[in-house]
């Protein structure tokens, strides 16, 4: 399945892109994608567990199973205000 992966702030600078299309096996979950991105972008692991996952613009756990076309992001700790 194809996923749309978005990067913001520190993650955008580490990956050098705002958006990537990534292909993962059907049935993969958010944690699988997190590990895949860690292989592709080792520097992302510096942020490690501080990255919050979001699927289709809502926070979610790594155990959530992904679907074709999902928009997924790993968000650094927020600092608005």
């Amino acid at each position, binding site marked *: 399945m194809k996923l749309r992966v*978005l990067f913001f*702030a520190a993650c955008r600078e580490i990956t050098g892109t705002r958006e990537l299309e990534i292909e993962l096996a059907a049935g993969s979950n958010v944690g699988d994608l997190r590990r895949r991105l860690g292989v592709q972008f080792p520097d992302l692991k510096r942020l490690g567990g501080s990255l919050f996952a979001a699927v289709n*613009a809502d926070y979610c756990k790594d155990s959530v199973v992904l679907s074709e076309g999902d928009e997924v992001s790993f968000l650094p700790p*927020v*600092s608005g205000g």
Partner: protein
Amino acid sequence: MRFSITDEPIESRALENEVRGDGDGAIVTFSGVVRDHCGDVATDHLVYEAYPEMAERKMAEIGEDVQKRWPIGDLVIVHRVGRVEIGEVSVVIAVSSPHRAEAFEACRFAIDRLKETVPIWKKEVGPDGQFWTEVPAASVTAD
């Protein structure tokens, strides 16, 4: 209620007018303002970045929570993105309500929740380099 992300300067007076209703006896406005330092580090300006669709959704959820807790008249939250200079406003929350207590409480709640849940990030840019706030020090990047 209205929740938005903008790259334009925010006019807090306009937002006060937007939330004002004939049944409201109070309007409380919070303005977040860019200051010239972060801890011991001098700041030249800030750069804000958002995940716009999710940020607006999360702000709307704050609005729903506020409505459940207090009998407010109206609520508007606007957060700026892009480069923001010292003394400029980065976020405005305007709340109207029949009486002042709930407007004060709702406004405080809204800014506290925004800082916890809304996907917006702040980069401090100063004479000694730049860094994303809340990100571990190892990821600091120099100019």
